[in-house]
């Protein structure tokens, strides 16, 4: 199963980005093959509609879960109809490595 994680940078030691639509990087982690893909967010600096555009990006990679600090108001209904699970983690100090370790437990 693929899990999307929002990150502040493109390495495992970077921290979890607290925003979803305007995060710096998306990390698509595959829990079965342990493979991961770093995608720079193209919607980082757009004026409006960053959330729905990011949802499209995640959905095109077939991720079934998204881990982020916060989700905007336009996102919830979109993700619900796409059956993607939202996981809200309010811990900005957690690194991507720690989150992946948690997923593997």
């Amino acid at each position, binding site marked *: 199963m693929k899990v999307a994680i929002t990150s502040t940078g493109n390495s495992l030691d970077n921290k979890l980005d607290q925003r979803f639509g305007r995060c710096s990087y998306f990390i698509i982690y595959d829990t079965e093959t342990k493979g991961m893909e770093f995608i720079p967010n193209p919607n980082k600096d757009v004026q409006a509609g960053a959330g729905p555009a990011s949802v499209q990006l995640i959905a095109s990679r077939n991720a079934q*879960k998204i*881990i982020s600090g916060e989700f905007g108001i336009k996102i*919830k*209904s979109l*993700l*619900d*109809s*796409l*059956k*993607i*699970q*939202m*996981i*809200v*983690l*309010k*811990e900005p100090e957690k690194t991507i490595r720690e*989150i992946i370790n*948690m*997923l593997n*437990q």
Partner: protein
Amino acid sequence: MSPRPTRLRKISNPPLISGFKPYGAKNSNGKTEAVFLHFEEYEALRLCDYELLNHLQASIIMDVSRPTLTRIYAKARQKIAEALVQGKQIIIEGGKIYFDSEWFSCKSCRCYFNNPDKQEEIKKCPLCGSGTISNCQELFYEPEESVSRCRDICICPKCDYEQPHKFGVPCKSEICPVCGHNMLKKIMPQNKKTTKEKKDESSNYKYRKQFG
């Protein structure tokens, strides 16, 4: 001026099937016309006729006003009647809706997550895999105070045993615990509310809906 945009209706249980087809048509030419039942109409029908809620309770669950719910419900019945009478197929799709999902929290990693797939029950945290999860929202719907507050009394016509009336249960279906006879509603002329009292209650309800 453009009209006011439609308020999104909340759908808590999406339908399991995407439609119905008629069979055994007398003069079929192989093709049947379709009636498009919207998701919100399906949901209104489910809440009112399957869950047996009243329109006010259903409207709160769907996050619309009571008159709007009644309109959606009337439309649903009209469409289903049309399909039955004219032998059309029913396709459930469309409508101004959003899907609602339950939220849970995990105690060991302090995260929150939702369950977009209603079919599967969540037993462990998707992040750390521990079983210490709890449901965030109180899912069970509690009737509004103005609806559940009821001063009526059920009375047994045989032995005059009295008990407070249960909201939503007809007095006739209550059975007297003393003699086993079916009970009746006690007629109390002083129980009738004045118009002013009713008006107060409805304004209270609006206030609660807005702020509570």
